[in-house]
């Protein structure tokens, strides 16, 4: 009797598996379409990775509007990544207004395995707008035009909206060209990426 009462109060339900299969089928097609369109560079995907350390490499980076300054990042209290750093990291912020990267490789360490993203070649480079990266290591062969070194970080103008703190060393340039780029990025990347020839995989090796 009580069971019948329960049923009256809360009508039991079930999943219609045929309908589920149909919905999943349509969803899978939509997702596949999105992946293909992104890989062809039709759709620009947005990235903002934070907190997870990740590596970016590229054969060549060409950018217009370049800024660089130092910043002190504070980790969350009790963060397991703290180590002997006392929870503070000095990072280099690189901001590029418009960037083209050929043979981009990005890997995110997920503990044991890496999510590896590759995209772009010399003919169809990855394009990114407002690329703002906090890195603890940048290597490569760089050349700049119209560079101002030692400008106060709060007065940088090449990338609209990105400035550092007052009294902090900064530099900016009109254009930048870095060959064999390698960045160990830490805290924040915020950008819109166009990823032609996107390839995603999980692999034991990073970039």
């Amino acid at each position, binding site marked *: 009797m009580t069971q019948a009462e329960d049923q009256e109060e809360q*009508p*039991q339900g079930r999943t*219609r598996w*045929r309908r589920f299969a149909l919905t999943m089928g349509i*969803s899978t097609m939509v997702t596949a379409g999105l992946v293909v369109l992104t890989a062809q560079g039709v759709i620009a995907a*947005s990235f903002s990775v*934070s907190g997870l350390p990740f590596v970016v490499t590229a054969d060549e980076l060409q950018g217009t509007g370049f800024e660089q300054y130092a910043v002190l990042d504070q980790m969350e209290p009790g963060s397991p990544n703290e180590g002997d750093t006392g929870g503070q990291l000095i990072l280099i912020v690189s901001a590029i207004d418009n960037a083209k990267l050929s043979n981009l490789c990005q890997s995110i360490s997920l503990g044991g395995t890496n999510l590896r993203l590759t995209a772009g070649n010399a003919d169809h480079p990855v394009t990114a707008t407002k690329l703002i990266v906090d890195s603890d290591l940048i290597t490569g062969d760089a050349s700049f035009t119209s560079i101002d070194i030692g400008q106060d970080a709060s007065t940088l103008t090449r990338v609209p909206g990105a400035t550092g703190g007052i009294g902090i060393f900064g530099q900016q340039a009109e254009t930048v060209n870095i060959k064999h780029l390698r960045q160990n990025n830490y805290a924040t990347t*915020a950008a*819109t990426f166009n990823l032609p020839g996107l390839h995603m995989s999980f692999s034991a090796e990073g970039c």
Partner: protein
Amino acid sequence: MRRSFRGWRRSRPFWGGLFIVVAAVEIFLTVKAPLPVVVHVGMQGLAGFLVPIIMLLCGVLLWFTPANRTFYSILALLMAFASWVTSNLGGFLIGLLLGMIGGSLAFSWQPAPPRKPAPALPPDADTAELTERAER
């Protein structure tokens, strides 16, 4: 207590909602950044934030107002697709797939038909009760 939870769970698209909530949390964690940074980036950053939040709301609302499940499940599916563009390729595909499963589960959930005969009672019981009522 456990039994009542089971009743609660079975009377709504529980698993669909749960998958959507997990997907939303996963996507949110991948885009997690200090709010000033997000605002700084502008619309793109904000959209990356908002999409998983709307997904989370859909998942929770599926539990508490299961009557509106069609709307919430379709919205959750659309948000899962949108997260590919706005939020780190749908939380690096994981959140997108979880959201797809959750949205589809919730969309295909339906309450049992109201005039379901009670299996516990023997078939005569109903008629006996009815005739008894008719006699009164």
